[in-house]
């Protein structure tokens, strides 16, 4: 079963990286008329992914103002934030032309390409964490807490980046060497960039998705924030750490407050209505509570269920709350439980609770399985030992993959409208797909609602089963 989910995750990756490539292969046609070199080197870069402008001025791409200083790249008019701005600029670079002679350039930073709609990039943007909170089309600034080892702390509100209130979170201003690129903070690493509030001309990306800030006609290389994947997924330790109250953190806080409020009310019900039948909200949550107690805690933990039940309940309701929070339309659609950092922390909590509760019997079964021949033990022990880590790993990946996949599928269904309408040029295609897409999205929403419950339940029941194995008393056969 675990293997199946791992395969799913990788299949998903492959799927979307393929679709990303396909989407980009059309772009040469769009850029050909725009008076710069995209069309020509398109074929040599089959494998390069995005070649689109990062700017939002979909109406101002007629080729004037190319002088590199006086860009109209800031004319974000709010009409064109429908996802065509997630790609990368692929102009020839004066500065970074080391490997193949072609790179991004600030010469066209302000020159938006009305490129092909890219569903993969749109999906990736929407499932990402961000330093702004989106409610409907509006972007709300959030507190940034950034730490660069050599520089120290920077704490400010992300409104300092001067992003558009209804855009995609691209900042028009750098602050203390940080910029806002598609909702997430990046740090300019090249020396010489001034501190304080500095208006920038735009942000461009190269083939490897490194963002550059354009300032005074020059490209200023930026770093993405440090991540804990050790470079496996393309992240790693960079020049700064982002401890901001991000969109996901805000979602978690909201869900936590909501759940706390609900459960304090429920718990109060048991005091004020002692000896009486449950009523209202108490009665509603009691049924879920008792379900988890009777189907998860008691069967696996037996007489010890009361000791571990609060942890299981906290896991279940936290995951369920976040899964459902991400499903509410126009509330940000936060992909919290679909973020590896969150599922990782939950899995680590589960790992710690399980292994710190493990009794002699449990460790004996891992390191020296009783009742099997010695040569079998030499095979069993490494397997069992690996199992200790694989269990939380699968917990982490299962929840992450399911929720992320759900969010991606929903976004892709909505994206179908933009794909078939050819970015607004095909009205029939747009309206036609809109009908089918709405039906599909509705159907998927229902499925995702189910998934929200199932995944919260699965995470909890598996944790309970691992806990059950750890605290089980030896029974003599």
């Amino acid at each position, binding site marked *: 079963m675990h293997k199946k989910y791992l395969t799913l995750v990788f299949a998903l990756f492959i799927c979307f990286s393929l679709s990303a490539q396909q989407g980009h292969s059309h772009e040469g046609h769009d850029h050909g008329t725009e008076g710069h070199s995209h069309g020509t080197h398109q074929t040599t870069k089959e494998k390069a992914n995005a070649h689109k402008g990062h700017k939002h001025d979909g109406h101002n791409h007629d080729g004037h103002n190319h002088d590199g200083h006086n860009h109209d790249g800031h004319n974000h008019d709010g009409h064109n934030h429908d996802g065509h701005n997630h790609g990368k600029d692929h102009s020839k670079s004066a500065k970074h032309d080391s490997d193949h002679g072609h790179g991004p350039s600030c010469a066209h930073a302000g020159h938006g390409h009305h490129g092909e709609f890219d569903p993969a990039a749109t999906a990736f943007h929407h499932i990402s964490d961000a330093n702004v909170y989106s409610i409907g089309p509006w972007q709300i600034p959030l507190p940034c807490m950034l730490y660069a080892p050599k520089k120290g702390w920077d704490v400010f509100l992300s409104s300092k980046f001067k992003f558009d209130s209804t855009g995609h979170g691209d900042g028009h201003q750098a602050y203390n060497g940080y910029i806002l690129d598609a909702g997430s903070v990046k740090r300019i690493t090249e020396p010489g960039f001034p501190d304080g509030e500095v208006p920038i001309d735009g942000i461009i990306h190269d083939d490897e*998705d490194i963002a550059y800030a354009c300032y005074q006609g020059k490209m200023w290389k930026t770093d993405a924030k440090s991540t804990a994947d050790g470079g496996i997924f393309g992240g790693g330790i960079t020049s700064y750490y982002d401890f901001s109250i991000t969109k996901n953190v805000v979602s978690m806080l909201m869900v936590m407050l909501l759940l706390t409020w609900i459960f304090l009310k429920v718990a109060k019900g048991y005091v004020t209505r002692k000896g009486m039948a449950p009523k209202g909200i108490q009665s509603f949550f009691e049924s879920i509570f008792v379900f988890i107690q009777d189907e998860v805690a008691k069967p696996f933990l037996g007489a010890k269920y009361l000791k571990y039940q609060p942890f299981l309940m906290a896991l279940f309701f936290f995951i369920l709350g976040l899964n459902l929070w991400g499903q509410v339309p126009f509330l940000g659609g936060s992909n919290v439980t679909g973020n590896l950092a969150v599922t990782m922390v939950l899995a680590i909590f589960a790992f710690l609770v399980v292994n710190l509760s493990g009794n002699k019997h449990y460790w004996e079964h891992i390191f020296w399985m009783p009742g099997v021949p010695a040569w079998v033990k030499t095979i069993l022990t490494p397997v069992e030992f690996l199992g200790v880590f694989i269990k939380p790993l699968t917990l982490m990946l299962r929840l992450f993959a399911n929720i992320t996949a759900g969010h991606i599928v929903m976004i892709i269904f909505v994206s179908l409208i933009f794909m078939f309408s050819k970015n607004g040029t095909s009205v029939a295609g747009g309206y036609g797909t809109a009908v089918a897409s709405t039906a599909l999205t509705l159907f998927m929403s229902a499925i995702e609602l189910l998934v929200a419950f199932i995944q919260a339940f699965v995470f909890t029941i598996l944790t309970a089963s691992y806990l059950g194995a750890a605290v089980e008393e030896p029974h003599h056969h």
Partner: protein
Amino acid sequence: MFFLLDFNVIKPDFGLIFWTTIIFGIFWFLMSKYAFRPIANALKDREDEIQSSLDEAKKAREEMANLNAQNEKILAETREERAKILKEAKDTRDSIVNEAKEKAKVEAQKIATTAKLEIENEKKAAIASIKNQVGTMAIGIAEQIIKKDLAGNQEQEGLVSKLVDEIKLN
């Protein structure tokens, strides 16, 4: 190894790890202390209470059944007792009545006998008195008659007595 177009949800970010730990930790602690544990305890108490109530009800029912059986028994016994008492009462009554009857009979007989005797005596007296009177009257009458016709008193008186004795009093 993997390179994906800004698929950053798979890159666990330190800030998010930090905040998730804090938020989940607080949530776990708060909920354990103020919600999940009290609720679980309340549920357990209620469960125990319901179980004990059910047990008590069962016990009460059993007791009730016991009591009923006892009552039934007592009732039956009482009924029997009553029947017995009634029977006894009847017997007593009968015997009293019989005794009374017997006594009455004897008394009546005694009274009747006395009465008879008295009547006999009275009769005898009356007869004697009547005889005397009749004798006297007869004598008188005879005197009257014989005064004229008979000379000897003796003969006459004997005749009259003989005649009087022959009179049967009925």
